[in-house]
C-alpha cells in the first residue's frame, strides 16, 4: 500500500478528460493506492457558495456533506488513473454514507486521505467503494464511503456481494416540495467541481445515454440534510441510497420522519412518486 500526497487539488476537468480517454481496456483488481493531502483549509467564499446552492445556513461549522468537496477530487484522481479497474464514464453513484464524527469548524486545518475498497458483485454488475477520511490534529473527524456501480462489469472471483440498500420506515405525507430548475446541475458543478457532463446539460447527458441532465446525488443529499440541519445529533451517520435518476427540471417532494434520535427521509417525484433518494440519519 502506498500513499501519494498531493500538493494541490487535481484539476477535475482534466481528470474527466483523462478518464474518458483511458476508459477502454481497464480491468483487474483495485489498486491499493491512497491519495492524501495535508494542511487543507476551507476557502470561505467556496463554503458560502456551497451553502447557498445546497440551502445550508452559512455558519462557522462545515455542513456534514462539505468535506466531500475536499475529498472528491482526490477520489476522482484515483478513479481516473489507469490502474483503476473500472471506467469512470458509466459509473453510477448508488450509495453514500457519511460519518460526521464531530462538527468541523470552518477554520480548521484538515488532512485528507482517500482510497478504494470492497470490489463487490452486484446483480447488474460490480460495485466499488471510494472511501475518504478527514482528520484534524491527528484525530479522524469525518469519513465517507461512496459506492459506485459499474453496470456489466465483473468483480474479481470471490468478491463479496454489494450492499447498496438503504431502508426507511413509514414516512407519511411530504413535508416539502422542491421545484428543481434545469440549471441545478450546472450550479452544483460550479461549487463542487463535479463537472461530470451528465449533470451539465441535456445535450451532454444524452451523449452518455441519459434522456435529460440529472441532478448530482450529493447535492440532493445535501439538501435533505439542510432541511433537518437544525435537528441533527452532534455526531451522526447519514446514509443515503440513490435510486432512480432525478431528471432536470423536476418537482420533487421531501418526506421525513423522526426516528431513533435521527431521521428517515425520502425524496420522490412529486407527480409519479418515483423514488430518487432514501436517507437515514442516526446518531453516531
Amino acid at each position, binding site marked *: 500500500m502506498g500513499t501519494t500526497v498531493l500538493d494541490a487539488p487535481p484539476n477535475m476537468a482534466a481528470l474527466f478528460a483523462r478518464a474518458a480517454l483511458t476508459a477502454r481496456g481497464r480491468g483487474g483488481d483495485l489498486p491499493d493506492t491512497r491519495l492524501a493531502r495535508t494542511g487543507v483549509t476551507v476557502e470561505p467564499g467556496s463554503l458560502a457558495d456551497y451553502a447557498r446552492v445546497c440551502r445550508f445556513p452559512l455558519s462557522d461549522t462545515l455542513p456534514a456533506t462539505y468535506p466531500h468537496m475536499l475529498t472528491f477530487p482526490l477520489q476522482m484522481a484515483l478513479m481516473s488513473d489507469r490502474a483503476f479497474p473500472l471506467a469512470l464514464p458509466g459509473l453510477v453513484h448508488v450509495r453514500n454514507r457519511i460519518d460526521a464524527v464531530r462538527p468541523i469548524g470552518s477554520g480548521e486545518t484538515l488532512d485528507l486521505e482517500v482510497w478504494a475498497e470492497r470490489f463487490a458483485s452486484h446483480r447488474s454488475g460490480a460495485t466499488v467503494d471510494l472511501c475518504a477520511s478527514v482528520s484534524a490534529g491527528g484525530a479522524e473527524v469525518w469519513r465517507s464511503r461512496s459506492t459506485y456501480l459499474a453496470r456489466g462489469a465483473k468483480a474479481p472471483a470471490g468478491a463479496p456481494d454489494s450492499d447498496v440498500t438503504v431502508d426507511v420506515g413509514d414516512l407519511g405525507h*411530504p413535508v416539502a416540495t422542491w421545484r428543481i430548475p434545469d440549471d441545478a446541475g450546472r450550479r452544483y458543478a460550479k461549487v463542487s467541481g463535479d463537472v461530470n457532463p451528465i449533470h451539465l446539460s441535456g445535450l451532454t447527458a444524452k451523449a452518455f445515454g441519459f434522456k435529460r441532465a440529472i441532478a448530482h446525488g450529493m447535492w440532493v443529499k445535501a439538501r435533505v440534510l439542510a432541511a433537518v440541519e437544525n435537528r441533527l445529533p452532534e455526531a451522526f451517520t447519514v446514509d443515503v441510497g440513490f435510486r432512480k435518476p432525478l431528471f432536470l427540471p423536476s418537482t420533487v417532494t421531501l418526506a421525513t420522519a423522526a426516528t431513533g434520535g435521527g431521521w428517515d427521509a425520502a425524496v420522490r417525484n412529486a407527480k409519479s412518486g418515483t423514488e430518487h433518494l432514501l436517507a437515514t440519519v442516526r446518531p453516531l
Partner: protein
Amino acid sequence: MASNSKPATRKAAIVGGNRIPFARSNSTYGQASNQDMLTATIDGLVARFGLQGEQVGEVVAGAVLKHARDFNLTRESVLGSRLDASTPAYDVQQACGTGLEAAILVANKIALGQIESGIAGGVDTTSDAPLAVGDDLRRILISLNSAKTLQDRLKAIARIRPGMIAPEIPRNAEPRTGLAMGEHAQLTAHEWEIGREEQDELTVRSHQNMAAAYERGFFDDLVTPFLGLTRDQNLRPDSSLEKLAKLKPVFGRALPDGAEGTMTAGNSTPLTDGASAVLLASDEWAAEQGLPVLAHLVDAQTAAVDYVHGGEGLLMAPVYAVPKMLARNGLTLQDFDFYEIHEAFASTVLATMKAWEDPAYCKEKLGLDAPLGSIDRSKLNVYGSSLAAGHPFAATGGRIVASLAKTLHQAGPGKRGLISICAAGGQGVVAILES
C-alpha cells in the same frame, strides 16, 4: 390607584377603527403603494375621531409584503398623515397576524401606562408587490456597485446573462416546505376530513353576512372609501352553493395519491390589497377626548406549530393558542358571545373548530383533559370574514378588532368576543375583547 408610582396594569380600550375597502389584486388599488393605503387609512381614522394635529402615543403597523424602500413604512405613513408629525411609529410583521399583533403591542403599552393612546394597523398589496431581481443578478449588481475600477465594473457587467433578468415574484409559499399556503391548508382539510360542501356553505354565509352588514350600515363608521371603491371588491352578495360548486379544486397537488382537493378559488381567500387601523387608548384618554370605548382588549396569546417536521397543519397554531388563553382567564370556549375565526380558507375555520371538538386531539396535542367543545355557529363571523372581504394579510387583524369591538359595543356591556387568526410560518395570534 393608591400608589403614586407606576400605575397598575389596566385594560386598553378600543375606541374605533377604520379601513379602506379591500380590493382584489391588480385591480382598483393596482397603482397604490402600501404607504398610500396606510396613510389614507390613518387619515380616515383621524377624520373619524378628530385627531388632526394630535400626537398619539404610538403608531404600530406593518406589511407582510414590503419594498426595501418601505423600511420605515409606518413612520413614513404617519409623516404623510394628518397626525402630529411628532407621533412615534414602528413597523411589525407577523405574517397574517401582523394587524392583531400590532393591536396587542399597542394595548400592552397602554396597559403598562407607557402610552395613553395608540394606533395599530396593517396594510398589504399584492399588486404593488416588491419584485426582486434573481439572486445571481442581485449579487452581480451588488459587486458592480462596490466595484472601484472601470475594469471591475466591466467584469461584473460581463457576468450578466439574459436569463438573470427575469424578476423573482414573491410567492405565497412557505420557504421551508415549498408548498403554497393553500396546499398546506388542503393537507389539513384532508386530514380532518373537511368536506367540500361544508366549506362552500361557510363561504356563502360569509358573503351573505357581510353583504347584510353593509346593507344595515354596519360598516358606515368602519370603512372609508378609497380610489372610488366603496365596498370590498371581493364581496359577492349573490354567492350561492350552486355557483361555488362549479369551481374546480386548486390546491390538491400535495395530497396523497388518489385524494381529490376540496378547496377552490371560492372557498379560499383571494389575493387582496387593503389597509386597516384601530385606535386604542386608556379609558381616561378616551373620556378626555369625548370618544367612546367600544370594548377592551382583555388578553392575547400567540402560539406556533412545527408544520415542517412536527406533523401539524400550517394554520393550526390558533388551536393551541386559544386553550392557553382560556385557561389563564378562567374561561371556557363557550363563554363568548361572538367568535371571529379568520377565514384564511373556509377549511381552516372548520378544521379549527373540529380540532377543538376532538377529544383525542385535545388530549394528545393540546394536553387537555376534555375537548374545548363546539361553538354556536350563529355567533361565528357574524358580519362576514376574509372569504367575503378578502385578506390583505397585515390588514385583516385591524379589520377584525374594529368590527368585533363595535359588535360587542352594540350588544351591550359585558359581552365577550374571541379572535383567532392563523398566520404563515405555522403561527397563530388570538385575543379576547370585552365590552
